[in-house]
């Protein structure tokens, strides 16, 4: 009996730890959210400044960030490139409908689109269009050539619509946490 009791005592905290660790993945508290909000506004903040603005200590802040990185909530920080500053003045959104009678239409198309360096984004949708490519070019002449030689030659296209990009009104991509 004594041994059984011992087992139960040992197993129980182990088990509860597993549940706690699993649920922790998605359970964020107010402090976590505050840290994410501040960090979204300025990802270059030092740990000390971030802790200060979120009203917590540096050690607590570091622990929380480590935990959110480990659980995959924070995926990383990336530099945002301004293509216009590199001379790419033209940006076009191409909305594409594929020939869905081809069973490999999506895979073939996406694999081929990846080979075009001027393609910045490939998105797939449920809706009126199947796919969208974001494409940049130095000027309209280069865009026209790119469109003819590299885009129209992509496989299984049924229809293409173009939206010419004029201005970026909001681009921070923050989540309403």
């Amino acid at each position, binding site marked *: 009996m004594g041994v059984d009791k011992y087992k139960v005592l040992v197993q129980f905290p182990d088990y509860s730890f597993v549940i706690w660790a699993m649920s922790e993945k998605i359970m964020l508290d107010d402090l976590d959210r505050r840290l994410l909000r501040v960090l979204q506004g300025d990802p270059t903040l030092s740990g000390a400044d971030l802790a200060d603005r979120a009203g917590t200590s540096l050690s607590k802040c570091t622990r929380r960030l480590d935990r959110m990185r480990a659980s995959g909530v924070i995926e990383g920080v990336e530099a945002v490139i301004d293509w216009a500053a590199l001379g790419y003045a033209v940006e076009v959104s191409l909305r594409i409908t594929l020939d869905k009678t081809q069973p490999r239409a999506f895979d073939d198309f996406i694999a081929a689109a990846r080979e075009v360096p001027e393609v910045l984004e490939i998105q797939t949708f*449920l809706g009126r269009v199947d796919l969208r490519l974001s494409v940049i070019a130095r000027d309209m002449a280069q865009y026209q050539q790119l469109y003819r030689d590299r885009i129209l030659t992509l496989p299984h296209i049924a229809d293409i619509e173009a939206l010419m990009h004029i201005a970026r*009104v909001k681009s921070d991509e923050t989540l309403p946490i």
Partner: protein
Amino acid sequence: MIDLDDIDRQILRALSRDATQSAGALGRALGLSQPATWRRIRRLETAGVIRGRRLRLNAEALGFGVTVFLGVKLARKGQVSLDDFERAVTAIPEVQTVEHVLGLYDFRLRVVARDLSDFERVLRRRIMALPGAGDLEANVLLSEERRPGPI
């Protein structure tokens, strides 16, 4: 306009994947000293090539399961002010990006929501209430891939 050499391109590529790398670590990977790397990063920043840094979050892990792209056509063009529309749409927290475009639609919005019924709430209460909003087209995002671009 700024001219880039191969090392600049490698730095840009590396930073657009992971901007948390120090100039020292990045320099070591490229066979460059820490000060030389730092100077190159500074130059890219002051030329505006690096527009800023963005925190990449897992939207789904944070409870945002749905991303929708909305094409918005303004009704009664000329009578509504673009400024009013832009100001109002920018203020909606669920709207992540707003692009002014030329073509089938006037604006392209990226909207996040917890689920489809939450999206319906945003659509009805916020988007459809925007000054001048006319025709809408919604496409639900299934997958998204960002490419390094021509660098």
